[in-house]
Every structure is written in structure tokens, then in C-alpha cells.
């Protein structure tokens, strides 16, 4: 369970987050949506202790994120940042292997190797496994970073706009892998999405943010409604239904 109580965040005079309260039970896929600058990434990086908590409390699996040893937290929670630009010339297999660092401290054993191979296979990276990251396309690199996040093998995974750079095929495939991680391994996934239609199909719950506050929270059918979307994104958006799921015509 992730418990967020009265969390606020300021950067100089700007209020990034204001009194955010949110409880996400264990298991399930939650999508965070909202316009640019709503505070989604900030909330994610606070949960993942990438920034110091200014006020309020956050616990993951009962562990307070500001006082729990970082290494222990890294075995509970993995985060993929949106701007995880990797400048290092690492091979894909090496990068994915570093996902095991919180567990093995750098000494890779056979069990780790099996997990690395599994992650490479899962994201169809086997043919690139021994190539350097800087020789890959943006989408292939993004898949390698996602594979590393999966390989960390944590109960909680936070992903900030993981569909960046991915084509339709791999975007859909990543969402299905996230779904499978939730259903088969009972992992808890929080993902920031800009394409609300992916959220409509794959999320159990959608949390909409705007100007540092949570403005809507519920099942996809309850959040992806014209009135809620107009409030969140600031323009009139039509919603229809395709295959029993809400389909948001945000581009019209």
C-alpha cells in the first residue's frame, strides 16, 4: 500500500503540490493524468524519495520514504524517470543488469542472470543485448530502461511517461506487460500517462491532477467523462465508447 498524507511541495514561490492525500492499495494499475505542470512527476519523485519531503508523510508498504534506508527502499520500489537520459556507453545487458544492484550489490549470480535474460526477452531486446546504448534509437533505449526497471523486481513500480519514444506496437506491448505484472505477480504499478486512452483500457484506477491538487479519482469510466476532462484539461472533449471502454476523442 502507498499512503500519501498531506503532502505539499514548494519550489521558491511556486506551489508544486498542495495538500495531496492519496491511498493506493497493494496491487492494481493506477494511471496519473493531467496537463503539463500539474505535479504528476513531482508526486512520483517524492514517493520514490528522489526529492526530500517538505511536508506531509509518504509510506510505501509501511516504510516511511524519508527515513527508510535507500537500499531497502530500492528493493521495494523502482522508478523510471521521464528524462532518464543515459549518457554512459553501457551495453543493454549491463544496464538491465544494474536493476539487480539493490539485491546483489554488484555481484551477479545465476539467478540474477536468469532475471536479466527474462527482462531482455520480455522487451524483445535480445538482439541488442550486447550493443551500446548510444547506438540505439530512442525507442530501443526507452525499452532498455523499462527492462531495467522491471528487472529490479520490486513490488511497486513507478513509471513517468514510459510510452515516450515508443511506437504503437511497443507502447501497447508495454501496457500489456504492466497489466501482466499486476495480474500475475500482484505488483503495484503507478504510471504517468499522457494518452488517456491507454489509461482507459489498462488502468484499474485513474487519478487526475491539476495545479498541484488531485481533482478526480476513480475507475476509468468515472474519470474519463466530458465534464471531468474539460475541468482537468481546460477544453471540451468528446468521449465515446469502443469495445466497452471509454474512448476519448482528445485530438478533435
Amino acid at each position, binding site marked *: 500500500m502507498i499512503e500519501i498524507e498531506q503532502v505539499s511541495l514548494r519550489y521558491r514561490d511556486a506551489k508544486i503540490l498542495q495538500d495531496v492525500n492519496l491511498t493506493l492499495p497493494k496491487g492494481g494499475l493506477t494511471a496519473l493524468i493531467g496537463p503539463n505542470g500539474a505535479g504528476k512527476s513531482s508526486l512520483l519523485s517524492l514517493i*520514490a524519495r528522489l526529492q526530500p519531503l517538505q511536508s506531509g508523510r509518504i509510506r510505501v508498504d509501511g516504510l516511511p520514504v524519508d527515513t527508510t534506508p535507500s537500499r531497502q527502499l530500492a528493493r521495494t520500489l523502482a522508478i523510471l524517470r521521464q528524462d532518464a537520459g*543515459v*549518457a*554512459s556507453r553501457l*551495453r543493454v545487458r549491463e544496464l538491465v543488469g*544494474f*536493476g539487480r544492484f539493490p539485491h546483489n550489490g554488484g555481484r551477479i549470480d545465476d539467478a540474477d542472470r536468469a532475471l536479466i535474460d527474462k527482462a531482455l526477452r520480455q522487451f524483445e531486446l535480445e538482439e541488442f543485448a550486447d550493443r551500446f546504448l548510444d547506438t540505439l534509437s530512442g525507442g530501443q533505449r526507452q525499452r532498455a530502461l523499462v527492462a531495467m526497471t522491471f528487472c*529490479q523486481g520490486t513490488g511497486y513500480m513507478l513509471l513517468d511517461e514510459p510510452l515516450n519514444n515508443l511506437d504503437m506496437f511497443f507502447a501497447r506491448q508495454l501496457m500489456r506487460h504492466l497489466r501482466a505484472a499486476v495480474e500475475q505477480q500482484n505488483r503495484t504499478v503507478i504510471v504517468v500517462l499522457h494518452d488517456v486512452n491507454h489509461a482507459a483500457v489498462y488502468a484499474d484506477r485513474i487519478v487526475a491532477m491539476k495545479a498541484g491538487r488531485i481533482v478526480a479519482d476513480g475507475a476509468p469510466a468515472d474519470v474519463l467523462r466530458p465534464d471531468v476532462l474539460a475541468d482537468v484539461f481546460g477544453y471540451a472533449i468528446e468521449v465515446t465508447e469502443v469495445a466497452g471502454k471509454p474512448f476519448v476523442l482528445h485530438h478533435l
Partner: protein
Amino acid sequence: MTADLKPSVNAWLAAGVGLAALSAISLCIGVGDMPPTGLWSDPQALQLLLVSRLPRTLAALLAGAGLAIAGLVMQILARNRFVEPTTAGTGQSAAFGILIATLLFPSASLAWKTVLASVAALAGTSLFLAVAHRLPPTQPFLVALFGLVYGGVVGAAVTFVAWQADLLQFLEIWTTGEFSGVLRGRYEILWVTAAAVALAWWIADRLTIASLGRDASVGLGLNYRRVVQLGLVIVSIISALSVVVVGMIPFVGLVVPNLVSRSLGDNLSAALPRVAATGAALVLSCDIVGRLIRYPYEIPVGTVLGVVGAGLFLWILFGRAQRV
């Protein structure tokens, strides 16, 4: 980490044989007469070997390996491939430390001067990093450029103080790398470099993760600040030792990590031994060249490396442009 065993064994063998051959050549070259066959019968030749040739060769190997590793670690800390301690203020700060030590405690031993130089290098490099991390990551050349300016400013301050104190001649010794003054009893402190290199190898995985950036490091449970601090200590100690014992040697920290990265990548547990061996080989060969080119006179190794290093650097730049 995942490199196959066989090529790495071959690479080790090649590196070992190459370094041994270079060392043998280095031991045989010099103005004094030292026939290898007469070593055991001629006590003077043995004396020459033990007092001058061997210390000089070891100093070149240690300084070369250390400077290459210092450059590598510095590039990780700055997250920029185009910085190195001798241009970005670390070497200049170390020289400042020795200058202060010479002014305030003229009778201080070499070890104490090294300590002061290390402390000054640590302070100077910390300031460089603090500024470098505030520069926009989208403009990698800004960091390198800032390093050059910063190193120039610190260097100018050092020159000014040295000029005021009438110590310019000493300054020349610290800023021009050369091995001709290396004798038994005056180089042993360089062995601390080997310890610093060993420390870098011990934390190789952590340094590699740190090179992924702060957020990725914290996400993997790494104590990012601790790794940066350790890295700073490694860079500062190696640079200070090198300045104190042999003077500043340019380009080693810049070109060697870039050359090795092209073939082996940036996974330090694999690349670090190769970086150290390449740095040692480069500095020792340049010292040998400097001893031969105007025999029986010498050209300082810093001058030789200025030419060779600049050539290598241009080659790296243009090779990179071709690949993209």
C-alpha cells in the same frame, strides 16, 4: 561484469607483455652506461638501476595509471567526457596547495606538502563540480569550457602568488611534468596512487551507476553523495601526488578514458583495468620518446604528451564525428 572470460584473459596478457616490454626499454635508456649483462658484476650499474632507472620507470607507470583513472572518475562526476583534472582546476588547485605549503611551512616534508596539495585539490574540484552541476545538461561543452576557464583562473592566481613570493621557478617544476628528477627516496609516495586506483576499482559498479545520474542512482538505492565524495577524494589525491612528485602531465586523463570507452564502453568493472594500463603505457612511452628524441638531452614528458595527447584528442573527435 558480463564480459567473456577468454578475450579478457588475452587482453590482460597483451597488456602485461606490453607494459613489461616498455619497462625493460625504459630501464635500458639513459645517459649513464648500464649494460644489462654487467648488472651483477658492476655495483655501479646496479646502483644506477636501483636509484634512478627503476624509480623513474615505476613513477611513470604509477603516474600514468593514476592520471588516467583520475580523468575517468572526474568525467563520471562531472557527467562530461571532456573534462580532466589538469585542465579543470584540480591540478592548479593542488599547485596552489604546494605553494601555500612552501610559503607558510618551508620545512614541511614531501608527505605534508602532498596532504596540503590534496586538501586544496579537493576544495578546488568540489567548487568546480558544484558549478558544473548547475550548468544545463543539454550543453555538454559548456562544462568543459567552464572547466578550462576555471582552471585558467586558478592557475593565474597561483602564478600571481608565486610571482609575488619570487617562487616562479618552483612553480615551473610543479606545472611541467617530467621524470628526470625522480630518484629513489623521492617518488615512493606515488605508491599511494596505486591505493587510490584500487579504491576506484573496488567501487567500480557504484561509479558506473553514479554515471547514470543522481535520480537513477538513488532509485537503485545507491548513496549518491557518498560515491561523489569518494570519487572526489580519488581525483584529488591522485592529482596532488602527481603534481608534487612529477608535475602536471596533460591529456592523459582526457584521451585515455575516451579511447577505452570506444571499444569497451563505460562499465567500469570491465573498463577500469584497461584505462589504468593504457594510461601507464602512454606516459611511459612518452617519457621514453622524450629521452630519445634529443639524446643525450631530455624533453619533459609533459611536452611530449602535449603533442601526442593533442593528436590523439583530435583523432577521437574526428573519429566520433565520422561514427555519428
